[in-house]
């Protein structure tokens, strides 16, 4: 992939991801409402929310929140830009982890009880999600011989053929990453949990808007990672990703939140059994004949 294509990919991501992420969030809220026999908000509601938050008074528990939430947003955008420019998958994964560190620091900076609990749970969330993201990069390397997204997408065979376990483990961790029940331990979009806003509870106005925007970017990054498994057959990939997202919404409405211990145990078990075992089996069978 040449430099022009790479730059175009990154720029398109930076511009279109918030639009698409916001629309997905809007559709998500409407579907959730329909599952609860309600009409729900307009599809554009997330954009109204962000616009409202942007015009609120700038009030901080600690002014450093301004820098830290900006760091969170910029690093997530950077991570996605690398992914969509066909860059190194390892860099994508590590930038994503670093971005969450900024969010955690922003929540700690408020020095408020709910915010601190949220920060600790977000830290657990990063710990839980990181192994499968690294396994994902490793898996793609074994299958295609490269960490570069540009090489992965040009591979003639879809990686899902060799990495079904890694895909399923990523789907399980997606629940946590999209902040959906039963794993929405750090913060939730709904008021049905014992700690509703957690990590964002001390943020308001623009800082909260930036966190929401970063979440939209992250949603697109994660869905794109799932799509990467179907590189040779993107139509099938899109269908599978849509089904996966629908299942996430369904689970969100069916299950209550579990404790942080249960989150860690269940997702690490899934990662180990489906993800690590998948990689191990590939290794034992002598890798992939490319």
């Amino acid at each position, binding site marked *: 992939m040449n430099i022009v294509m790479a730059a175009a990919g990154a720029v398109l991501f930076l511009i279109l991801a918030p639009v698409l992420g916001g629309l997905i969030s809007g559709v998500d*809220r409407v579907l959730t*409402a329909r599952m*609860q*026999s*309600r*009409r*729900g*908000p*307009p599809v554009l*509601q997330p*954009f*109204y*929310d962000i*616009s*409202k*938050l942007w*015009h*609120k*008074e*700038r*009030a901080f*528990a600690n002014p450093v929140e301004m820098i830290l939430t900006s760091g969170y947003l910029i690093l997530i955008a950077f991570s996605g830009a690398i992914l969509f420019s066909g860059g190194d998958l390892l860099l994508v994964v590590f930038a994503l982890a670093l971005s969450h560190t900024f969010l955690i620091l922003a929540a700690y900076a408020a020095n408020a009880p709910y915010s601190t609990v949220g920060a600790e749970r977000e830290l657990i969330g990063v710990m839980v999600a990181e192994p499968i993201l690294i396994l994902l990069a490793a898996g793609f390397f074994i299958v295609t011989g490269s960490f570069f997204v540009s090489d992965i997408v040009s591979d003639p065979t879809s990686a899902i053929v060799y990495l079904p376990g890694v895909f399923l483990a990523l789907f399980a961790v997606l629940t946590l990453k999209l902040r959906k029940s039963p794993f929405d331990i750090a913060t939730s979009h709904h*008021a049905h949990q014992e700690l*509703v*806003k957690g990590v964002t*509870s*001390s*943020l*308001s*106005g623009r800082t*909260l808007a930036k966190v929401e925007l970063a979440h939209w970017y992250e949603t697109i990054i994660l869905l794109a990672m799932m799509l990467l498994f179907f590189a040779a057959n993107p139509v099938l990939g899109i269908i599978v990703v849509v089904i996966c997202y629908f299942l996430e919404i369904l689970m969100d409405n069916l299950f209550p939140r579990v404790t942080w211990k249960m989150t860690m145990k269940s997702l690490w078990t899934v990662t180990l059994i489906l993800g690590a075992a998948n990689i191990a089996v590939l290794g034992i069978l002598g890798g992939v004949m490319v």
Partner: protein
Amino acid sequence: MSSAGKSPWLMHYNASSCNGCDIEILAALTPLYDVERFGIINTGNPAHADIFVVTGGVNEQNKEVLKNLYDQIPEPKVVVAVGICASSGGVFRDCYNVSGGVDTIIPVDVYVPGCSVRPEALIEGVVKALGVLEEKRAAVDNGGLR
């Protein structure tokens, strides 16, 4: 209507109400009435709130709490006094420990009288509050309230 009126996040505080009005408020927030249709989210967090819904006549114990919550809500914000006690102190206004209405402690934008308040009146009150929120947002954008 610009975005402030399309995304009003609401916080409810009971300043020594008898719970009659609180029950009506909570009933209006149930999925049956689906206030999310109007972008309303019931938040328990002053940092995220736009509309402050207060019930009860405010007593000596909780007037500091009420003031503190009000101060934590970022501008633009609107206060809705729900029920006759919140509006004027109602039958309790002459009690030794009752302040006599929310407006004795914080500025109130919309009064919704009733004992307890009718859901229709409550919804109309919140709709009036959206108009006030819109005006205040324009003032904030012009630097008036910042």
